[in-house]
């Protein structure tokens, strides 16, 4: 017996009609509770950041020569330096200037977030996803999911949905030197080698596509290989990758390896292991430069 769209429509309507009406007061009360909780978390985050900036300011005042080590990547990194003497004001300042946002392809609404809200790393309990920050001579590389704090949403902006970024920051996290946006493909892990910084993610139920990225540490150039999901891809149309900063390549090979964890550096490239105890999972080897 064939099923038709009318059957589907009928089933959906029947199911919806069986639904009890929600209590409007309960909906408003629940929304209010969440608004208040969000405000408290945001204040807590900003308070923690302010305290951290004060501590850093004290350290910086006695080790000012250390600042000379930093080499901001790219000529656009201007205007958002935070003065240790005005930490409270600075902690509420935009994390990036409008100019930097344009240079790095960052949504202005995200660039306008203060550092304390924008630079938030995945909670350790969110999964065994590997290292998400590494210190290097050029600064601190880290994966950030703006707008979340202990798993709670801080931002109401749709720009933050399914968004993550790879950031190069000053060691004290006070300034963003370089930002790489990953809309719909938030990175889960970070791997730094002498030549490059790699990041990646494994697709899952909500965001089914996977990716591996490479940033050349000498030039700052970004290359990304997007491995589209065979069953539920958001990138079936290559135009979905258009306009992103860097070189983005859609790879339709549907690898079965474990891209959720950092790869091993082998003699002939990056080696992603197969999933243990999963039949059909095979290793994936990628060229360390082209990611092909």
């Amino acid at each position: 017996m064939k099923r038709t769209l009318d059957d589907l429509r009928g089933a959906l309507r029947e199911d919806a009609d069986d639904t009890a009406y929600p209590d409007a007061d309960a909906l408003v009360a629940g929304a209010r509770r969440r608004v208040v909780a969000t405000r408290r978390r945001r204040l807590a985050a900003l308070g923690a950041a302010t305290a951290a900036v004060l501590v850093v300011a004290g350290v910086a005042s006695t080790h000012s020569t250390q600042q000379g080590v930093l080499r901001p990547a790219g000529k656009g990194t201007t205007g958002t330096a935070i003065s240790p003497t005005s930490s409270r004001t600075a902690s509420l300042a935009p994390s990036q200037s409008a100019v930097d946002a344009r240079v790095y392809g960052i949504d202005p609404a995200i660039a306008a977030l203060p550092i304390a809200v924008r630079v938030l790393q995945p909670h350790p309990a969110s999964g065994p996803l590997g290292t998400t920050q590494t210190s290097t001579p050029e600064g601190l590389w880290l994966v950030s999911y703006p707008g979340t704090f202990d798993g709670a949403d801080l931002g109401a902006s749709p720009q933050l949905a399914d968004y993550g970024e790879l950031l190069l920051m000053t060691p004290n996290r006070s300034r963003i030197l370089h930002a790489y946006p990953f809309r719909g493909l938030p990175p889960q892990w970070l791997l730094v080698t002498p030549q490059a910084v790699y990041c990646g993610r494994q697709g899952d139920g909500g965001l089914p596509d996977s990716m591996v990225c490479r940033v050349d540490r000498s030039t700052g150039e970004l290359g990304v290989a997007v491995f589209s999901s065979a069953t539920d891809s958001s990138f079936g149309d290559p135009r979905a990758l258009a306009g992103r900063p860097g070189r983005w390549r859609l790879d339709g090979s549907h690898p079965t390896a474990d891209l959720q964890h950092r790869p091993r550096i082998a003699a002939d490239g990056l080696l992603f292991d197969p999933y243990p105890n999963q039949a059909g999972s095979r290793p994936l080897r990628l060229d360390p430069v082209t990611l092909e």
Partner: protein
Amino acid sequence: MRDTPPGGFVDFVIARGPALHRTAVLLTRQEESAEDLVQIALAKAWQCWDRIDGNHEAYVRRIIVNEFASAWRRRWRGELPTADLPELTGDDHGDGVSMHQVLMAALATLPPRQRAVLVLRFFHDYTEAATAEAMGITIGTVKSQTFKALAALRISEELHEGAGPEPTGSAREGMLL
């Protein structure tokens, strides 16, 4: 940020809360989760209520759909549409309960985007363009997700021709009806 609802917020919830709740129930398949989902979306809308330009219901529904996909990302563990979806026999013909149960059970196994696309397209009767706008994806992705979802539900091929990723010149909205 205010502790009291912005102007018009409560009236909106009274008027449109049930419709938004129905959307959430069809997505989550659980009334409790649906109420949570609506509350989360309303809380987000609350914080920018005065800046919402135009249709508040569409705005909140968009949050519901995208929040559903995000929440699913944290909870979903690779469940895939089953290849063993039961075939209805001739005995079921005319028995709407059986068809309903089979379809809704199959809908519950779909990946979140596919489920959301079906709910928006065939419950709310959104166009492909409106669905794409609500979900923040391209029209091509809406087409491909619709095609895959209908295939998973084994909706008759001839009745969803044109919903696929590469529609032919004969693809048309009317054919979906």
